[in-house]
């Protein structure tokens, strides 16, 4: 909490739930998650650079159930942050500010990210796993 005794503004619990809240919160959460998830990218590249045995070890971890679950979460976070990021860029350019448009584009971000994740993982599973 703040060190000072200033009055605090009302926080999340006093507001009625709206989808725009969810997209905003998710954008931050997925952003932080992706920053942590960059460890996967660092790991993959370092293992590939270190030679064949090392790379096969990485593939084993990535293809294990826990590895696939993490990759699944990571891919959804990436696609959500991508969709909603494009939405934010369009809003920064000045479009889509009317409240109905704002709500519609919020749902588009959420649904678009789920659709993209399902498509990608359908492809991965049809090809027979992640590694």
């Amino acid at each position, binding site marked *: 909490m703040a060190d000072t005794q200033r009055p605090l503004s009302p926080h999340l619990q006093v507001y009625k739930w709206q989808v725009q809240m969810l997209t905003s919160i998710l954008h931050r959460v997925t952003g932080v998650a*992706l920053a942590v998830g*960059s460890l996967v990218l660092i790991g993959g590249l370092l293992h590939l650079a270190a030679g064949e045995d090392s790379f096969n070890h990485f593939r084993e971890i990535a293809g294990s159930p826990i590895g696939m679950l993490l990759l699944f979460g990571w891919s959804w976070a990436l696609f959500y942050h991508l969709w909603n990021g*494009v939405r934010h860029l369009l809003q920064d350019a000045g479009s889509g500010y009317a409240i109905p448009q704002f709500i519609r584009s919020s749902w588009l971000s959420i649904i678009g990210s789920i659709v993209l994740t399902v498509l990608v993982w359908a492809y991965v599973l049809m090809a027979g796993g992640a590694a």
Partner: protein
Amino acid sequence: MSAKEIVVKDRRTPLKTARGLGSSQSGVGHWWTQRVTAAALVLLVVWFVLTVLCLLHADYATAHATVARPWNALLLIAFVLTMFWHAVLGLQVVIEDYVVTRWRQVVLLVAIKFLAVLGALACVLAVLRIALTP
């Protein structure tokens, strides 16, 4: 014109107005860089995801050869640098918003920069090693 009128019109010095950096001393630099890196990442992420999907079930030799291809190595380094830059800008805002105690805030802000630079350098070094190893 009396001195009082001048004060009411604008409290800033002309130099302050010309610099246009506002009370934060950094103007819109952070905001704009975040958007530019975001726009670059839209393209780079699409390329990255497609490349990774093409490498499903690839053995070591195929993966190595793919990353070693000049365009792929170039784009991969561009992706990694842009991604870590964008991540630092984003994490910075989150830390500034939620970490209230000043010394904790400063320590975290410096720590994420150190970690991001280390991560970016590790990735670049790995790509260069892959690309330059025959």
